């Protein structure tokens, strides 16, 4: 029984991590429908940024997140302007271009870090809270809290501010949004920038948990796509709950079957959802087609 509870808590906290890395992707893929394979590399940039801030400037990752996230957001803005904007409506070319960016980012960072893996878990991330037989890692709990807060914030932003409403309007119908006086290009730029900044934030908060390598983004990208599709494209709470489900499923599969099957569990979830209910748990039926239809 204790074992099951421990695995469950571990899975929920892991789900918090997946939720956090999926929030940015949910904006970029779920809301504005851009296939960004380089999202995991933005998380990786966040991790390296916060590592270097810690190693050379002595800044705690929970403080450097306020520097790192905006910087990664700027990278996202540049990506959108230079690569994504010219390719809107061409999802196949977006796949190529963002995969090219993935290769670039990963290997540039490999050159910068000379292939060395960094870790600051020993200095920051080792404290554990014990409740009865439950052992809860503090850094993971922080991530879980951050995921919850950001989800609430994003929910309020998209639903209750003019900017948030204009983002949703642009997704649904670019032409009508333009006719209503919304600056479509600026909205896309903003959304992509925020999505990238959220990835950077996730990276900084994950620095104490993961060992930091140029390839670390690969741990997140498929899981994040699975979470976004499972929750329902563009559904803020869907991504939150989807993240928790993926985390719990992975924890149980890893504990009771084999730790190596985790990629397979993401994949199974992804495939089953796409085939059984393509709109995801909390997405509107038919919403998965919006934005991939031809628009001008």
């Amino acid at each position, binding site marked *: 029984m204790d074992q099951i509870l421990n695995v469950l808590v571990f899975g929920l906290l892991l789900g918090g991590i997946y939720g956090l890395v999926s929030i940015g992707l949910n904006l970029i893929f779920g809301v504005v429908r851009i296939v960004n394979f380089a999202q995991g590399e933005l998380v990786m940039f966040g991790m390296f940024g916060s590592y270097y801030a810690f190693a050379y400037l002595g800044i705690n990752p929970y403080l450097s997140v306020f520097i790192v996230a905006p910087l990664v957001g700027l990278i996202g803005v540049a990506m959108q302007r230079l690569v994504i904007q010219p390719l809107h409506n061409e999802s*196949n070319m977006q796949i190529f271009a963002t995969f090219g960016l993935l290769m*670039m980012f990963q290997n540039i960072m490999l050159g910068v870090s000379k292939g060395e893996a960094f870790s600051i878990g020993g200095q920051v991330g080792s404290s554990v809270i014990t409740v009865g037989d439950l052992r809860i890692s503090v850094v993971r709990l922080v991530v879980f809290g951050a995921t919850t807060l950001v989800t609430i914030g994003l929910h309020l932003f998209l639903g209750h501010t003019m900017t948030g409403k204009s983002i949703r309007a642009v997704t649904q119908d670019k032409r009508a949004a333009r006719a209503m006086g919304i600056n479509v290009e600026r909205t896309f730029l903003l959304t992509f920038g925020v999505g990238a900044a959220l990835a950077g934030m996730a990276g900084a908060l994950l620095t104490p948990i993961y060992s930091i390598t140029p390839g670390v983004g690969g741990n997140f990208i498929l899981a994040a796509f699975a979470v976004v599709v499972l929750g329902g494209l563009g559904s803020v709470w869907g991504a939150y709950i989807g993240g928790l489900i993926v985390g719990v499923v992975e924890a149980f599969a890893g504990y009771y079957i084999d730790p190596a099957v985790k990629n397979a569990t993401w994949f199974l979830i*992804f495939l089953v959802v796409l085939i059984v209910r393509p709109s995801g748990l909390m997405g509107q039926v038919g919403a998965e087609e919006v934005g991939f239809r*031809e628009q001008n």
Partner: protein
Amino acid sequence: MNKTDNTGDAVGGLSRADSGIESGQRAFVKYVLGMAALLLPLALLVDDAHWLNIIAFTYLMGGLAAAWNIIGGFGGQFSLGHGVFFGIGAYGAARLYVAYDLSPWLTVLPVAAFAAALAMLISWPTFRLRGPFFAIATLAFNEVAFVIAHNLTSVTGGPRGIMIPFKAGLENMIFRERWQYALLMFGFAALVIGITVILRRSRLGYYLLAVREDEDAARASGIDVLGVKLRGMALSAGLTAIGGTLFAMYLRFIDPPTIFNLQEVGVKFALLSLIGGIGTIAGPLLGAALIIPFENFLRAELANAIPGLSLAILGLLMVLAALFMKRGVVGAIEDLVARLRRKARGGK
């Protein structure tokens, strides 16, 4: 509006300049001339071991990219999971050879047939997905294949991989001389391109193009869309598996990180096609002929100085091609020819 920009013109493929269907005889002559040109570097550099390695690899990757192009280019289904079929070819032949002493010549076709059957089985549900969803799902297949290969130690050797002992002999598909391998790879490329030339003129080829251009319209015209995609995928996967077998017999060592490496294998086929010209007959080969030697050069020059730089440059190329050369080198040449013709006509 934009959609037609990158695909509409490419429909004509090589025959576009003639505006009309080219005669079978002409296509055959073109094919033979093209293959002869392809053989030229091998004939010229037959004494240079370093170049022979690059040439053999270029033929192999060109053939593999051309195999991807059947479903990715003509069918418009951007699979990023062809590493799975490549892996089946590599592991299937290697395991059967090492464990049961079966010659790769005997097993290559059954293994390819198995890959084709599996491709149909896993594509049947995924072909319901369109565009990016299909690409992500196939990417996930590749990851699952990695996990299986990593854990199914009795078949794949797990993380330690499979080592094929060196026993030179035609019957083992293991050769002492590099040029013999290069010739083998050339045969593979010629086979795939030959099939592509025939396919491009066949009913299935036209159906694939129709599905790529507009799935709904194709269905409305009475095309069995799913059946066409499945047949295209099976053909593409089978040929990819043959390439995998050749790869395994050439390197004589395979392990999961080599076979299921996305950047070096699964996505590479698509990248080479993109650079050369997606959905054209010559494009994938041309892409391989440009990229593989270039990559070798980069690796030799830069690997020691800065790790990863060659792949970073390849990534940059991919971005630039997606932005500015959507129809690849073949498309750029066709545009140039068309412009020159127009100018010549205007001059009269």
